[in-house]
């Protein structure tokens, strides 16, 4: 439904206008009245489409008329679009968006609320507002295999402290110099690994290394769709080393009324990182359509059709 060419959308739009005009002419049922129009943008990767569909369909369910603008390249496209009112909402990530709007000033921390309020201080003058960050997060994370997790009964990164000396860490070649990686693991968690293997950042080399057992701990992204199928478990970042890339709706202040905020916050409150992993795997691995997996999630969470 979101992949019609613009002419199809134009026709659909015209049809909707004609229909609305006819509906207004006749004394229509009050249920048909819309709470307003909202255009929601999605970034061009599967999680971007899934998130836009989740929040957008929830707004539709609440009675808004929602237009989806999916598969937009990046913030370089989405930021001017929302500032000029082409788009009303997009679903961003607290730390990444903060570092975009503050031009890489390095203000993002591991605390999602503090990061979001910093983000809001930069958004205010642009006529934008970021809502409450969700617990769902797509950020750098360290994973182990299920076997390793059970062997050492690991749940969070600090659990690694007594056993790190027996384990090999794998990540991108930049890891030994980046604060979020090896130096941070040493200073924040006191982890001193047996050795470090330079692989790739969350790529196929890391996965192959997990598979053949040449690493025990590896850098991934917390919402990767293939974590479950590869039998990987993300260890909780209990000391907040990683910048808080929690999912956060960003909208124009002009459309941020209580009603819209309530709907968007409702989704943020229910969405979890493990939901994101599942939704991403449905789209990326099972090749289901983002609108369909979002609809199914909403139905599970009592946004009946």
């Amino acid at each position, binding site marked *: 439904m979101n*992949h*019609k*060419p*613009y*002419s*199809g959308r134009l026709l659909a739009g015209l049809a909707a206008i004609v229909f609305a005009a006819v509906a207004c002419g006749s004394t229509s049922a009050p249920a048909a009245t819309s709470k307003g129009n909202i255009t929601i943008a999605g970034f*061009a*990767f*599967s*999680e971007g489409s899934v998130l836009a569909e989740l929040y957008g369909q929830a707004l539709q369910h609440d009675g808004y008329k929602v237009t989806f*603008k*999916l*598969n*937009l*390249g*990046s913030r*370089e*496209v989405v930021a*001017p*679009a929302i*500032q*000029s009112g*082409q*788009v009303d909402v997009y679903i961003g990530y607290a730390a990444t968006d903060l570092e975009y709007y503050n031009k890489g000033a390095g203000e993002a921390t591991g605390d999602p609320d503090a990061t979001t309020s910093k983000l809001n201080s930069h958004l205010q003058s642009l006529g934008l507002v970021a809502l409450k960050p969700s617990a769902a997060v797509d950020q750098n994370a360290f994973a182990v295999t299920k076997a390793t997790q059970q062997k050492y009964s690991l749940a969070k990164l600090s659990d690694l402290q007594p056993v790190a000396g027996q384990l090999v860490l794998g990540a991108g070649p930049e890891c030994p110099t980046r604060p979020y990686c090896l130096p941070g693991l040493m200073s924040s968690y006191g982890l001193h690994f047996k050795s470090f293997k330079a692989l*790739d*950042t*969350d*790529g*196929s080399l890391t*996965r*192959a290394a997990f*598979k053949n057992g040449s690493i025990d701990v590896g850098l991934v*992204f917390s919402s*990767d*769709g*293939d974590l479950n199928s590869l039998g990987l478990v993300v260890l909780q970042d209990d000391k907040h080393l990683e910048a808080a890339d929690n999912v956060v709706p960003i909208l124009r202040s002009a459309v941020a009324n209580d009603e819209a905020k309530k709907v968007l916050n409702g989704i943020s409150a229910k969405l979890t990182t493990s939901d994101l992993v599942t939704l991403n795997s449905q*789209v*990326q691995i099972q*090749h289901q359509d983002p609108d369909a997996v979002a609809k199914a999630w909403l139905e599970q969470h009592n946004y009946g059709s």
Partner: protein
Amino acid sequence: MATGLFLQAEEQPWILWDWLFTHLSRFTDAMQQHVELTFIAVAIALVISIPLGVGAHRWRSVRNPAYVVFGIFYTIPSIALFALLIPYTGLSITTAEIGLVGYSVLIILRNVVVGLDSVPPDVIDAANGMGYRPMARLMRVELPLALPAIFAGVRIATVTTIGLVTITAVIGLGGLGQLILQGLVDDFRTPLVVATALSVALALVADLLLAGMQRLAVPWSRGA
């Protein structure tokens, strides 16, 4: 999100036929958008290039600035261009076409000028001797003789634009580029392979059609 293109290499087939057949409408819609974006871009570029090319052929004071302006335009990265345009023209077909037309004009314009420049001086003398006034001479002698070069420009511009349309995927258009992008981002071969093949086929068919039109319009020239 940057998961294993290599790891999956043995497991993932080049084309998942089930998925393809349930998503055929995405491919036909994308093809249609691709053709429309290309056609509009080349048509507008041609409308701009012919009068501009005639002016550039006559007057050096038009030629150099026109080449410089469109030459500089050609060097602007598309994403930067779109980011600049979005506040004014939005995430619209207009934004996409401003980029695509600009890139096509440089190609067609140069060919119009080259075509007009290559009309032999004695032909022009003969036309003058037969009493053609400048406008009639342009329309009935010079432009027809420049047609093979102009057609060559249109063919290059069309094939180039069919490739370039994919860059408009960043503003949510892009025709087949949308599916190619999805294939790359998700490591999903089916849309990547099928959309790429369709894009190549589209370029070949368009070039053949234009070659056929050229034979009809300029029967005295063969080849090129």
